[in-house]
């Protein structure tokens, strides 16, 4: 029970909902960058929401199935083809042993999730199959898929063909993005004008955007209040005594290019952080392509919690629509 990787695409990794609990040792949660899309793909094929699936960036893989299975592709608009025949996204379809799954060019978003009935059954490490390449954990030998890999699958009955998620419940990224930010952490180190500029300026996703963090450029440099650097911090005004980084926190090394840490975040370091992207908008970051115009929108805690409730309600509606 497996499939064979004919071509892995640009970067395809095994991901589930991650390995919480080891961030204090520098091992991040990892897991799907767009968790909503992973849950949806799994539910469509009849898996548990937290089963392991494939996350493909920008380009789909070519996979040859050794068994009959049910497959669903969610997240980015990366149209699947089965033996050349077009298949719909966000919809379950049957695959027979010997058939080959390929993908058209990316039409929108950045990361597609490919769930297969039974789930991917690579050996878990620290209770998760999520691939964390820096630490060689999860996936296949801790690395992304490569040509010729035989990827094991678990047992699963597979849901019926045609199960689909209604378009109003799919989360599709637009051509521009707004990321809601709760200011805090070391916000106090920057000038008032720098704080205003950060939210007023238009930024764009930089090419250096990956599972560890998304970098943005195009806004004005951050100016710091004058202060004597505390002992142990280092001499640059953007330096602090190395501390923890929350997931979603925004650091601006040297005051120039903000980086939003994501699922494979470094757990800490010596750069100041000015706030954190709220939990409701983390999935969206995983779907942003390089050069996407982006604005950071200032919110307070009640707004962050309201957005979180909205996300929760969308997830509940999606679940209900499939049950």
């Amino acid at each position, binding site marked *: 029970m497996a499939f064979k990787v004919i071509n892995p695409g640009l970067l395809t990794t095994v991901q589930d909902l991650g390995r919480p609990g080891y961030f204090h040792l520098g091992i991040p949660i990892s897991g799907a960058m767009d968790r909503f899309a992973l849950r949806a793909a799994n539910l469509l094929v009849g898996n548990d929401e937290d089963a392991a699936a494939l996350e493909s960036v920008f380009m789909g893989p070519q996979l040859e199935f050794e068994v009959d299975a049910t497959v669903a592709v969610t997240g980015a608009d990366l149209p699947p083809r089965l033996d050349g025949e077009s298949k719909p996204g966000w919809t379950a379809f049957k695959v027979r042993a010997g058939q080959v799954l390929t993908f058209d060019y990316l039409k929108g978003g950045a990361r597609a999730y490919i769930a297969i009935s039974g789930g991917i059954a690579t050996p878990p490490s620290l209770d998760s199959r999520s691939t964390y390449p820096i630490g060689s954990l999860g996936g296949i030998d801790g690395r992304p898929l490569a040509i010729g890999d035989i990827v094991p699958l678990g047992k699963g009955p597979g849901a019926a063909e045609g199960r689909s998620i209604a378009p109003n419940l799919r989360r599709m990224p637009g051509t521009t993005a707004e990321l809601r930010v*709760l200011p*805090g952490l070391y916000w106090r180190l920057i000038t008032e004008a720098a704080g205003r500029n950060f939210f007023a300026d238009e930024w764009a996703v930089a090419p250096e955007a990956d599972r560890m963090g998304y970098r943005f450029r195009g806004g004005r440099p951050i100016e710091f209040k004058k202060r004597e650097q505390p*002992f142990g911090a280092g001499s640059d005004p953007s330096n602090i005594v190395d*501390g923890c980084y929350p997931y979603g926190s925004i650091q601006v*090394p040297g005051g120039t290019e903000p980086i939003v840490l994501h699922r494979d975040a470094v757990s800490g370091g*010596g750069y100041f952080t000015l706030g954190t992207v*709220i939990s409701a908008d983390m999935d969206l970051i995983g779907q942003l392509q390089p050069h996407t115009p982006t604005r950071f929108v200032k919110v307070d805690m009640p707004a962050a919690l309201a957005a*979180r409730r909205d996300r929760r309600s969308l997830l509940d509606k999606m679940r209900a629509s499939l049950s």
Partner: protein
Amino acid sequence: MKTRYTFGGDEHIFVEMDEEMSLDAFFKSLSMTNAVRAAQIDGFTEVCPANASFQVKFDPDKIAPDDMLAELKTLETVAESAERRLNTRIIEVPVFYQDPWTHETLMRFRERHQDPKGTDLDYAARINGYDSAAEFIVAHHSSPWFVSMVGFVAGLPFLYQLVDRERQLEVPKYLRPRTDTPKQTVGYGGCFSCIYSVRGAGGYQMFGITPMTIYDPKQTTSYLRDFMVLFNPGDIVKWKPIDRAEYDATLADVEANRYEPLIRDVAFDLAAFSADIDGYNAKLMEALHGV
């Protein structure tokens, strides 16, 4: 020392014990971290201790952020009265200073460094008032170090020098971070030494390399079979300078899974240490080597 609480989005609270680094700030952070773990607050997910701060992750669907904040603040008084004493380990870490691999790497990224004409060690020696790299190296390995944080990437220890502040070495980070650092490089940034657990990006100055694996996800290394990460916050480290021949021999032993690092149980008492730093360090060395 003034404690500062701040939210990191809707899922984290970041608590800074002090802006500057000190063992007092570290011990207070460690005490609070332990108190948070013991309190078992409903909705608490995990806690990460850092050098002079810590971070709590929580589930805002289970506990309101303001309630979580209030719970943490009540623990501060408990932490303040906690004794600044640890039962811990002292670990000897062999270091091949001025090795060819970090040298090759630092030459490759020279344009990102404050002093493009010298080496990282020459630069660090000069700005810390030493006449030569050799003298600086002696200052680096003569006293023990304290693991004040584990993180950045998997299993990377940050180490704080157990000497009075006047003698502490301080260097800036690279002007722009490197995209490559050899695995097990012994680095330095701000007032912290570190060991890069894996190969990858880095901004700390590079002084040498250890043959000792400190992170092993396969858990085949003889001393990492129980857990893949060697270091814990609170561990004490003593660098041991070695030459190329000893480096090669130790590396061969590590790779053959027959290396046993020198590790001894030891207690660390902050008040006793602060009262007589050199005397206390001498006792730590006795604990490591036996008398």
